[in-house]
């Protein structure tokens, strides 16, 4: 059982990470590198770099050099994130195994809503050189929003009673009513046009990642659960 889920998560995560890495290398990373040139220019003219809301990789331990090192380390990180989200999705769909590919697509879109759309509604994807509120406060809000959205969507989709579905809708709204941590007057070093393109690029890259993950998790979990010659029908999805 667990072995099946691990296999499903591993292979689906690898496939989705491959898609993410390709889009990242072609579209997203060049935008990040471009934003970092504004950071470097700003740091050259400022005595206190931290006031510009920037970060120095060199001062903070090992960092991959631009080029193949950075591409490789991003690909490895994408793989870890792919397998991690694959584990979350494979675990969730094992409770309600999708029989159709279209339902698997919905699972993928639900993951996209939980881990990308809902958190991004309060904390949009940010380019390097963007000032933002305290990191731990933002991480806490991100995690709380993802959990509330996941429970809310599960209630709306699976709860047998209407009042529970209504509670699900309320849960979706709660993090946004509380509000994400924000600075009073945030500064952005990169031009607004670059930031807008980056937001679109990340949202589309993440959508491709989640759609791939949802479809692959469905296909692989169905294949893993398919009854073999010595498996009784009752063992399916057990």
């Amino acid at each position, binding site marked *: 059982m667990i072995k099946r889920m691990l296999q499903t998560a591993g292979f689906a995560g690898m496939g989705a990470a491959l898609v993410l890495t390709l889009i990242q290398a072609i579209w*997203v990373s060049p935008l990040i590198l471009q934003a970092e040139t504004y950071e470097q220019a700003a740091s050259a003219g400022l005595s206190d770099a931290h006031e510009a809301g920037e*970060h120095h990789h060199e001062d903070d331990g090992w960092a991959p050099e631009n080029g193949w090192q950075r591409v490789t380390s991003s690909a490895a990180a994408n793989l870890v994130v792919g397998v991690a989200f694959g*584990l979350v999705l494979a*675990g969730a769909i094992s409770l309600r195994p999708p029989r159709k590919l279209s339902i698997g697509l919905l699972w993928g879109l639900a993951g996209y809503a939980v881990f990308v759309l809902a958190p*991004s509604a309060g904390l949009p994807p940010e380019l390097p050189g963007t000032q933002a509120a305290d990191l731990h406060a933002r991480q806490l809000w991100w995690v709380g929003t993802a959990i509330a959205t996941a429970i809310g969507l599960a209630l709306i989709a699976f709860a047998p009673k209407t009042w529970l579905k209504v509670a699900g809708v309320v849960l979706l709204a709660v993090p946004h009513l509380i509000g994400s941590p924000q600075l009073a007057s945030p500064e952005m070093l990169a031009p607004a046009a670059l930031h807008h393109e980056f937001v679109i690029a990340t949202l589309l*890259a*993440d959508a491709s990642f989640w759609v791939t993950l949802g479809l692959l998790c469905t296909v692989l979990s169905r294949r893993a659960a398919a009854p073999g010659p010595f498996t009784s029908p009752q063992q399916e999805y057990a």
Partner: protein
Amino acid sequence: MSTLQSVSSTTTTVSSARSGRRVLNACCVVSLGAVLLYFAGFSSLPALHNAAHDTRHTAAFPCH
């Protein structure tokens, strides 16, 4: 208790145990995913942050 009731009760118990195990397995797998996610997306260790920097920005995790 009739034989029919006994069989029905046993079936319910087996089904309930199987369902409980399925939920436990799912929780274990999701927890493992959450741990991996923490290291890739949320850890403040400088080397991990730098290695996963572009991934954190692409996946819309809070980064800096």
